[in-house]
């Protein structure tokens, strides 16, 4: 049974946009990030990375590094404990121990260029770099597989030797396809045969990176008592603890992960790369603190981007505007080890539509690229691009209004997703209506200047949002302020959005809260800041902790007033009984005789954060001579459930849109024939900046989530999904040529114009 809530609308704190508690520290440079961590006796680590995308390691000679002055330790995969071929729940999803270890440091083979082969700890960073580069590795270079077609071709070399693929429940050897799965409901082929129009297209997209500004880093101290202390830029300290424990066979109880601020993650900082290496280097260095920081090239080449791949999409529709059937093959790049976002893509791909029958087949395909990781709504942007491309063509072909067609086929309460799960209350229809009524949709595109063309695109998308485990502690201080401890890494202002939910209950100004994010020894388990879960889940823990504090304080008031707790009422921050009243902040200073400090704690393990939908409109202008694109107007409509802090909610939506537009128009892993990434710097990997973007207008629709007392839904992920198709359809409208391959970059536009 899942708790559901009746939501109200007359909030005092929720719905305002107070200044974030960590704002001053962050804008004045006082906030401590992973790169700022110092410890007495700190030494530096560095790694040697593979120059090849696919090769067998024949030998590693570390003698020169070991003999170098100032070197304390040299590490290869042989220094890791023997890992079982076992998949464990590592707090933030599953990790196969053997493959996880091999991704952190190569064992026998390198699977992508930049794969770590060895590591060194030395007295300073320069010595560590020189020592690492002195390590000699003999490789047998193998053919690099850079895309899913090559990986699935007959006779393709196997990247992960020994992999046994699970193909629709059957074991398959000698394959690069780790998993094939299917969701199928109804007779799809019959439904296509009975459709008036069937359109089938195959689209493709490149691997892209999250592009967070702060590179990965880790500092570790392996104490003489085997207690391990870690600092690492991460979206979840407990995830680091779980993964390090699993990969190093070290008890979680002997690992403490300290929170440091994070300079962006977007899903890419849910995986450990450096922390296990720093830990083992520290142990081999006699317990000295060891610190490693990646450079930008390493971040691009050897962390966890979003998968590229290809998607076949087939949709049948009748002339009355009703979709009859849909069928898709989702083929996504896992990277060098199994585990792409194809499972999530399958959940999202048909979630905007109420389909009578459907079939989804997913393929998780290894290629010689870095092991993919989560990136904002993992899998959904790719899926949205595929289905919305075909929906747009259907509307063009049959003359349907692009919003009305979506409304006529929209998912709503009771609709089943492509995986069969039925929706509770969702807000897609409200988003489509808001888009239809928006100023943007009702304003003509306007004539393009000479030499340019304009087009408008629209797309919708879905993300299911996450739940999981979170903890929050409240401590009422004598002066009426509240110390709040919570375990979620603060990426988008969640200290404040969490505190606001406790403040609403207690009737204490949120400015009188002092939120902190302690280490993993000091707060209860809290999952990663990801999956759009934090304001929902940790916020609900804060709400529950505040409710428990009210119950505690009622008994204290009863004690003070010598009455029964059942006589004490609480509303708007004031306790009343028998004609007496006292504000909660005044009460705080009078608690000593009633038992001393008043505290409360709450831990939750929630199912999910309520489904999220977004609908977006993109106006694009194209220079017909150069193919350069400019987004000239953009509107993002989204069901946010309830915007706890509207300014942050708007910022999440705007940030997601900009990242999605980068994916649509510019960004790609440009891979050379030998499997190397050619554009591994921010100069060459062109992400949009504020100078490239117009104001992203937002329309926040509030359809309350029945699973949260304030109606909160996850916000941060779905806005990255629609831009891929919205921008591509705008480009199509501008020049009259469809785009089935991302990014829609200038060269590709010029090719289309000259075709």
């Amino acid at each position, binding site marked *: *049974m*899942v708790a559901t809530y009746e939501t109200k609308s007359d909030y005092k704190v929720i719905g305002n946009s107070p200044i974030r508690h960590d704002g001053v520290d962050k804008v004045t440079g006082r906030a401590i990030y992973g790169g700022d961590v110092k410890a007495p006796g700190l030494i530096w680590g560095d790694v040697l990375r593979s120059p090849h995308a696919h090769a067998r390691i024949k030998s590693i000679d570390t003698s020169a590094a070991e003999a170098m002055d100032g070197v304390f330790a040299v590490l290869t995969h042989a220094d890791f404990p023997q890992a079982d071929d076992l*998949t*464990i*729940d590592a707090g*933030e*999803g*599953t990790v196969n121990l053997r493959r996880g270890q091999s991704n952190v440091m190569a064992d026998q083979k390198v699977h992508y260029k930049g794969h770590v082969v060895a590591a060194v700890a030395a007295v300073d960073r320069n010595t560590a770099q020189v020592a690492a580069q002195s390590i000699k590795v003999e490789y047998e270079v193998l053919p690099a597989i850079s895309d899913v077609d090559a990986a699935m071709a007959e006779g393709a070399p196997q990247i992960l030797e020994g992999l046994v693929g*699970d193909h*629709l*429940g059957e074991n398959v050897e000698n394959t690069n396809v780790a998993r094939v*799965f*299917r*969701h*199928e*409901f109804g007779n799809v082929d019959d439904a296509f045969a009975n459709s008036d129009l069937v359109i089938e297209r195959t689209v493709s997209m490149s691997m892209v990176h*999250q592009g967070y500004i702060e590179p990965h880093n880790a500092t570790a101290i392996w104490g003489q008592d085997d207690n391990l202390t870690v600092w690492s830029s991460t979206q979840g300290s407990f995830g680091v603890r779980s993964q390090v424990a699993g990969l190093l066979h070290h008890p979680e109880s002997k690992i403490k992960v300290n929170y440091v601020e994070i300079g962006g993650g*977007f*899903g*890419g900082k*849910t995986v450990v790369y450096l922390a296990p290496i720093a830990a083992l280097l520290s142990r081999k260095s006699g317990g000295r603190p060891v610190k490693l920081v990646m450079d930008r090239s390493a971040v691009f080449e050897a962390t966890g981007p979003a998968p590229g791949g290809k998607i076949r999409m087939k949709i049948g529709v009748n002339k009355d505007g009703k979709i009859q059937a849909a069928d898709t093959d989702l083929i996504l790049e896992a990277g060098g080890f199994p585990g792409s976002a194809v*499972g*999530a893509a*399958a*959940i999202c791909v048909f979630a905007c539509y109420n389909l009578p029958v459907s079939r989804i087949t997913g393929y998780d395909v290894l290629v010689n690229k870095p092991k993919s990781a*989560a*990136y*904002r*709504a*993992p899998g959904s942007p790719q899926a949205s691009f595929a289905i919305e491309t075909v929906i747009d063509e259907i509307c063009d072909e049959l003359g349907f209004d692009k919003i009305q067609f979506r409304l006529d086929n929209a998912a709503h309460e009771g609709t089943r997703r492509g*995986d*069969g*799960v*039925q*929706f*509770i209350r969702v807000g897609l229809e409200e988003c489509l209506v808001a888009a239809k009524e928006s100023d943007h949709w009702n304003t003509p595109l306007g004539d393009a200047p000479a030499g340019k063309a304009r087009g408008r695109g629209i797309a919708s998308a879905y*993300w*299911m*949002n*996450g*739940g*999981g*485990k979170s903890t929050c502690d409240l401590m009422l201080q004598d002066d009426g302020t509240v110390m709040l401890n919570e375990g979620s890494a603060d990426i988008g202002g969640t200290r404040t959005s969490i505190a606001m939910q406790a403040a609403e209950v207690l009737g204490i100004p949120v400015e009188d809260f002092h939120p902190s994010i302690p280490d993993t020894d000091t707060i209860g388990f809290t999952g*990663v800041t*990801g*999956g*759009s*879960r934090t304001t929902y889940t940790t916020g609900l823990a804060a709400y529950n902790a505040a409710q428990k504090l009210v119950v505690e304080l009622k008994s204290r008031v009863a004690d003070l007033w010598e009455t029964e707790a059942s006589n004490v009422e609480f509303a708007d921050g004031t306790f009343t009984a028998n004609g007496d009243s006292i504000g909660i902040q005044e009460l705080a200073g009078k608690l000593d005789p009633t038992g001393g400090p008043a505290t409360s704690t709450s831990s939750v*393990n*929630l*199912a*999910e954060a309520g489904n999220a939908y977004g609908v977006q409109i993109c106006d694009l202008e194209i220079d017909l001579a150069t193919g350069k694109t400019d987004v000239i107007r953009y509107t993002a409509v989204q069901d946010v459930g309830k915007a706890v802090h509207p300014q942050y909610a708007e910022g999440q939506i705007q940030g997601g849109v900009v990242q999605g537009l980068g994916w649509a128009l510019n960004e790609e892993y440009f891979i050379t024939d030998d499997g190397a990434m050619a554009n591994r710097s921010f100069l060459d990997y062109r992400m949009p900046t504020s100078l490239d973007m117009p104001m992203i207008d937002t329309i926040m629709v509030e359809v309350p989530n029945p*699973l949260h007392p304030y109606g909160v839904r*996850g916000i941060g*992920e779905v806005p990255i999904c629609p831009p891929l198709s919205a921008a591509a359809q705008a480009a199509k409208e501008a020049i009259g040529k469809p785009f089935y391959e991302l990014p829609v970059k200038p060269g590709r536009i010029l090719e289309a114009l000259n075709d």
Partner: protein
Amino acid sequence: MATVFLPYALRKYADGAEQVQVPAKTLRELVDNLEAAYPGTREHLVEDDRLKPGLAAIVGHVATRRGLLQKLEPDTEVHFITAISGG
């Protein structure tokens, strides 16, 4: 009686059926009764007396966090899907 939406790979154990009816008051009982009716299904769902790592159970409309302890309402529906985390 719970309605179990069988994952595609398990339908071969139930003559291709998309859904089957299984009497159960808890998820543990459901898995046991599913195995009794359709031998071979259990090993795809459970490992070491818990849901397999990476697998999520949807009971009604939302993913349960109680695993095999999850109680089942009469006439509820149950799905087994890949567990998903986000970015």
